[in-house]
């Protein structure tokens, strides 16, 4: 298990992982619903290999978890450490976005 590692060190899976976390932040979703939501949200179509590569890593780090279900389509939800990691990451993105906009305005 790689608990407490947050979103860092995910390499090429970092962005898909953030998109998955954002997707399940409001309520649990299964894989297909996550892929559809991410595409609607960002225009990015996650391939199945990438989607489950990100899901496996997030689960391993304890950032998302399975919701018990009888259905074959098992939903995932954000865990409290996952919510905290996502807040931190989005805060960082907001600061970068603000700085980028400000610098572009000065250019």
């Amino acid at each position, binding site marked *: 298990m790689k608990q407490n590692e947050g979103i860092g060190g995910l*390499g*090429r899976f970092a*962005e*898909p992982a953030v*998109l998955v976390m954002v997707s399940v932040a409001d309520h649990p979703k*299964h*894989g*297909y619903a996550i*892929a*559809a939501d991410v*595409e609607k949200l*960002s*225009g*990015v*179509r*996650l*391939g*199945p*290999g*990438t*989607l*489950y*590569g990100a*899901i*496996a890593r997030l689960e391993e780090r304890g950032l998302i978890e399975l919701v018990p279900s009888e259905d*074959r*389509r*098992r939903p995932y939800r954000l865990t409290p450490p996952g919510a905290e990691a996502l807040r931190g990451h989005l805060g960082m993105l907001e600061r970068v976005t603000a700085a980028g906009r400000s610098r572009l305005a000065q250019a």
Partner: protein
Amino acid sequence: MRSLIRLYPRRWRERYGDEFALVLRGTPPGPGTLFDIVRGALDAHVREVRRGPLLRLGLLALGAFVVGWLNLHTTDDVQPVAAALLVFGFGFGAHRPSRAWLFALALFAAVPLSGLWAQTVSYRQEVLGHAPLYESIVALIPALLGAYTGAAVGWGLRQGGGPANGERSGS
């Protein structure tokens, strides 16, 4: 396309196989999807092997044994040893790029060690002759070359593929 799930490790299939099949059913087939699945399978295998340090050590010992064996049994030709060092070095380097140097050294060490062992027990002395052990230092070249080429590929697999490894749709 669904049969490609078999490319994934068994433990992974048991855990994600059903869900993956459902997602795959709703994904348009094409070379991009195929590439994504194959790359995901490669990644899953790498992660699976990473879980087992004993397995990794065992594979490294096996690789070193093969290199040592070739060193003793193909004394008239250095190419088999060099090829083995390149191939094993590449595999281990790709598996864990940050440790490429360690794998290269471990595999290389099989060359002088097997020579030393052969000289100690006079094994195949008639074939080995009395070549000085320091000459085996040249084996470092294919070992390092293989390991670092593998490391470059390994890094590429982990870092490359664009921001989300997906296709932008409608933008």
